[in-house]
C-alpha cells in the first residue's frame, strides 16, 4: 500500500508542476501583452502561436513523465 501512496505523491507533484506551467502560458503571460509588443508583435505571437506550442510540448512531456513514474513503481500496464 505504501508503494501506492508514494506513487500517488509523485503523480501529484507532477500534476502541480504541469498545472503551474500551464497557468503561466494560459493566463499569466497574456497579462503582460502590452509589454510584449515591441517591434515584434509579441502579444499576437503569444496568443496565436507561442502558448499553443507550449501546450503541445507540455502535454507530450507530461505523458512521458507520468509513464516513467508508473514504470518506476511497476504500475504500468504489461504489454
Amino acid at each position, binding site marked *: 500500500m505504501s508503494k501506492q501512496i508514494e506513487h500517488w505523491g509523485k503523480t501529484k507533484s507532477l500534476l502541480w508542476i504541469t498545472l503551474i506551467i500551464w497557468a503561466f502560458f494560459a493566463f499569466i503571460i497574456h497579462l503582460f*501583452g502590452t509589454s510584449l509588443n515591441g517591434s515584434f508583435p509579441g502579444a499576437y505571437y503569444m496568443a496565436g*502561436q507561442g*502558448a499553443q506550442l507550449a*501546450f503541445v510540448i507540455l*502535454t507530450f512531456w507530461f505523458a512521458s513523465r*507520468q*509513464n516513467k513514474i508508473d514504470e518506476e513503481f511497476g504500475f*504500468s500496464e504489461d504489454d
Partner: protein
Amino acid sequence: MLRLGDNFISSLNKVYGIYTLGFLGFVILMAILEMAGVSNTIIGWLFVAFTVLIYALIGVLSRTMQSSQYYVAGREVPAVYNGMATAADWMSGASFIAMAGGIYLKGYPYMGFLVGWTGGYVLVASLIAPYLRKFGCYTVPDFIGTRYGGNLPRVCAVIILVVASFTYVTAQINGTGTVAARALQIPFEVGVWIGLAGILFCSMLGGMRAVTWTQVAQYIVLIIAYLIPVFWMSNKLGYGLIPHLAQFDAVSRVQELEGLLGVKELLPTAEAQAEAGKLAALKVGINDASATAMANWKFFTLVLCMMAGTASLPHVLMRYFTTASVKAARQSVGWSLLFICLLYLTAPALATFTKLSLLDPTVATSIIGKSISEVSSLEWIQQWSNVGFLKLVDGNGDGILQINEFFMRGDIVVLATPEMAGLPYVISGLVAAGGLAAAMSTADGLLLAIANALSHDLYYKVIDPKADTSRRLVVARVLLLFIGAAGAFVASLKLTSILGAVAWAFCFANSGLFFPLVLGVWWKRANKAGAVAGMIGGFGVGFWYLYMVQFGGMTPWYGIDGLRFGMIGMPVSLILMVVVSLMTEEPDQETQDMVDAIRVPKGKAVLAADH
C-alpha cells in the same frame, strides 16, 4: 458483403496513405476539369458528393453488432490515429469557418478562444482522460454513475450531457447546412437535412468504430483544405514560404495600415450600420493586447471557461476510451493537440493575410480606398453580397470605399478567401469540402455521445438492465435517428449564431461536469450527495444566469456575459460539491478502492469489458 476485418488496424498507414494521395489526385482532377471549362456548380457538387460518399462508405464498412466495437471502437485505436480523429471530432464548423473571421473582425480579444481551446487539452491529459480510460467506461455518465453510485448521479450527468451536446450539435448541423447550401446552391433548410443524412450514414451502423475511421478521413480533408489557401496567399503576397513564420511581418504591415486607413478612428455611422444590419465593419486593431483590467479579466475568463469546457465535453473525453491502453490515452492527447494546432496556428495567419490583401493599397486585390463602383463590380463582391454576407455602404457619399463602409460576416474570411485572393475555383470547392468535413465530424461525435448516453446509461442501466446486446444496439440506433432529426429541426430554425451556441455548450459542460469528473479522480472524499449537489447546483445556477443575461435583460456581472457563464456555474458547483461531501458520510471502502484502482494503469479495469 465487405466489412473491415481484423487486419485493418495493422494496415492503417497504407490505407490512409492511399486515401490521402487519392484525395490529392481528386483535387488535381478537379483543377483539370476547371481548366477544361466545367462550371463551378458542377465542381462544387463533385467535391461534396465525392467526400461524403467516401465517409458513408467507411461508415458502412465499419458496421458492427458488438457492443465494445459500437461504444468504444474495440479499444484498439492507435494513439496517433485517435489524435487525428479527436482533432476532427473537436474542430467544428466554428473552428473551421468562423474562427479566422472572428480574429479578423474582433482582433486580439478573440484570440482567447485559440488559447482556451488548446490549453484545455493539458487538463484533459493530466486530470481526467487517462483515469477514465483505466476505469473502462463506455460513456462519461457511466463513470459518474459508477464512481458515485446509484441512478441519481448517472441521470444528472446524462441530462447535462444531453443539454450541452445538443446545443452544440444544432450549431454543427447549422454549419453543414450553410456549407451545403453554398456549395450546392440549394436552400439552407434542404442543406440541413442532406447534411444530417450524411452524418447518420457515418455513425448509425458502426457507432464509435465507424465514427473513428470516418473522422480520420475527415481530418485529412479538412486540414488539406485549410492549409492550401493560406500557403498560397502567403507566397502570392510575397511574405514567405511558411505563413506561420511569415505572418509577423504581415502583422506589422497591417498595424502600419491601420494608422493610415484610420481603422480605430473611422467608425461606421449609425445610419450605415443600420443599413448593414448584423454585418460588421472592422473597428479594432490586429494586435491591441489587453490594456485595462477589464480587458485582461475578459480574456482570462474566456480562456478559463473554454479550457474547463474542453475538459468536460463528453464527445471529446469519450474519444480517449478507444485507445489500447492508459499510456496510449495520454500520448493520444498530445497527438490530438498537435493535429488541432496545425489548424489553429494557421487561423491567425489566414486572418492576417486576408486583411492584408483587402487593405494594402500596394496589393492588386485591395479594395479599401478604391472607388465604390469599381469594387462593387468585382465578381466575389457581387456573389457574396447577393447572399447577404457582405455590403458596401457609402456612409459619407464620396464614392470611395473607406474602412468603415465595408461590412461583412466573419465567416466570409474562410469561405471567400480563395475568391478574394484571386485563387481558382477549385480551391473554393476544396474549402467547402473541408468545412463540411469539420462540421460533419463534430456532429457525428456529438450525436453518438448523446445517443450512447441515452441508450447505455438511461435505457440499459436505469430502465431495462436485462436488455441483451442486440436490443441495446438497436435502441442506440433508433435514438441516434431521432436525436439527429430533432437537431436538424432545431438547426433549421436558426435560433442563435454558430459561435454563440458553441460557447454555451462549453459553459453548460463545465458548470455541470468539470468538478464531478476531476474530484471523482483526485478527491476520494467526494461522495454521491456532493456530486449530485455539484451537478444540479452548478448547472442550474449557470443555466439561470445565462437565461437572465440573454433573455431576462439582466446586466452581466463584472463582464461575465453569455459566452462566459461557466464563471458563475463552476464556482457554485465546486463549493456545493465540497461542502455537501464534507457534511455527509465519506464514500464506502469499495468506492475508495475503486478510486485507488483507477489511479494506477496496471490491473483490470473497474468495469468489465462488456458491461
